[in-house]
């Protein structure tokens, strides 16, 4: 299956959920979706289309909190970034960790460093600081700067 077909099938399945599609080249795609649809989209990619979850990157911008979920289709070398924008004051999204274990640690890390809440995560404990860091201070947010 080539990249075009994969993306066409994806677009057909999730027509109403897609907000924006951007592509740098045929091996890199960024698709912005509604954050409510993340479970359905991830389920499709992981179970039906044979994608592998690489990692997720959270970032804080003027729009609020954004997450890029990076999925890889290894046989064609495609990296598909599923991009969601979360609310500025109350960032939360459904956890993917009940579907696959690969997202378990990174969701805990994003929760710890950015303060994003992952709903229905099996164990949303701190990953890195093991409770040694002040509660409610999220070190990777923009209000905290490095020297």
């Amino acid at each position, binding site marked *: 299956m080539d990249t075009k077909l994969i993306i066409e099938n994806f677009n057909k399945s999730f027509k109403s959920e897609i907000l924006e599609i951007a592509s740098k080249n045929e091996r890199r795609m960024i698709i912005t979706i509604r954050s409510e649809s993340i479970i359905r989209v991830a389920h499709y990619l992981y179970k039906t289309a044979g994608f592998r979850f690489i990692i997720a990157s959270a970032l804080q911008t003027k729009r609020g909190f954004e997450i890029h979920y990076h999925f890889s289709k290894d*046989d064609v070398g495609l990296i598909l970034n599923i991009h969601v924008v979360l609310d500025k004051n109350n960032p939360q999204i459904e956890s993917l960790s009940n579907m696959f274990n690969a997202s378990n640690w990174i969701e805990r890390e994003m929760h710890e460093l950015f303060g994003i809440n992952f709903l229905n995560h099996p164990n949303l404990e701190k990953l890195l600081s093991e409770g040694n860091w002040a509660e409610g201070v999220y070190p990777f947010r923009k209000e905290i700067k490095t020297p």
Partner: protein
Amino acid sequence: MSKKTLIPIGPYHPLQEEPELFKLYCDGEIVKDIKWETGYNHRGIEKLSESKTYEQIFFLVERICGICSNSHPFAFANAVEEIADIELTNRTKYIRTIVGELERIHSHLLWVGLAGHFLGYNTVFMWAWKYREPTLDLFEMISGNRNSYAMFKVGGVRRDIEEAKIPVIQKVLDDMKKKVDLLAGAVMDDPVIHARTKGVGILTKQDVIDYGAVGPTARASGLAIDVRKDDPYAAYPLVNWKVITAEAGDVFAKAEVRLLEMYESISIIKQCLDGLKKEKEGDIEVKVKEIPEGIGNGRAEAPRGEVFHFVQSDGSNSPVRHKIRAPSYVNIATFKKSCTGQTIADATISLAAVDPCYCCTERMAVAYDVNSGQKIMNARELIDLSILRTAELKNNKIRPA
């Protein structure tokens, strides 16, 4: 339900070369559950990266890992060059690939040695580390450093491999092949190693997919994923080589994959050296004016698996966000599968089998509050915290799994 005994490995343990804490919950000899505590090495590199320029970040990411110090700059370069649409010269591609593969050889030898050490088989440890030494000498010759080579920059490499150095590298590779033969023979035919590693720490294909494991850990379970083949970069599409896989998923299969991969690496470097000879003179960099706005997803196959760098640029000279995913981050999580149900003695080698790199996994800088300008936590507080934690541990206040 019977009472479980907690056996800690770490945070400082003579066997492990880096600080980490494994809590093994055991019932008699058998490990029933495992919990991992980390954060000892967390240096906040992702956050720090946002305050550095693209040129400086190369030196920063190189210090994420001391063993595969080339793979992070490799992936970062791939990400930035994707944003700026840079086409590299062939000479750059060859040199990058040579450095990358030399690193794989030295890293795999290091692992074979450590694996021997974990099994209590110190002869293997001493052999492997002795044979690894010439590759470090090559690095010193090429870059001036045995480790942290500082070879990469946006659009090129910092140092050329001149024609006079090519025969020296070839000779080391020829010698290396004989040493790998010897080591492979000794490891693959040794009944003691068979007894200690076969059927131990098995990861099934489904486990690998579930945890998203990468590199030799995935390939030893029959999943042929390798970024060098799947999403080729640098000179990998220009040379002939094959992806090594094994089916068993146990520790032995992981050792087998790593040993056989060294032969492929030797072959790749030789082809690249031939390529360099053909190229003769050529630029080792292209001029880069600016990094435009955009998103780059760069990846590279490190000795331990896929390194992934996500870079978002706003057109200024430092990134808005730089996310780093090292292979050990996903590979270490598989411990839950590979160690549970094993005996304690087998747990150590199962832990070592993924070639874990804790420094890669964690990436903390001193943080200041923007409004007050005060440090959020100072050195004294950190020391007090550590005294407190030691006292807690002495009173057996280990948090439950």
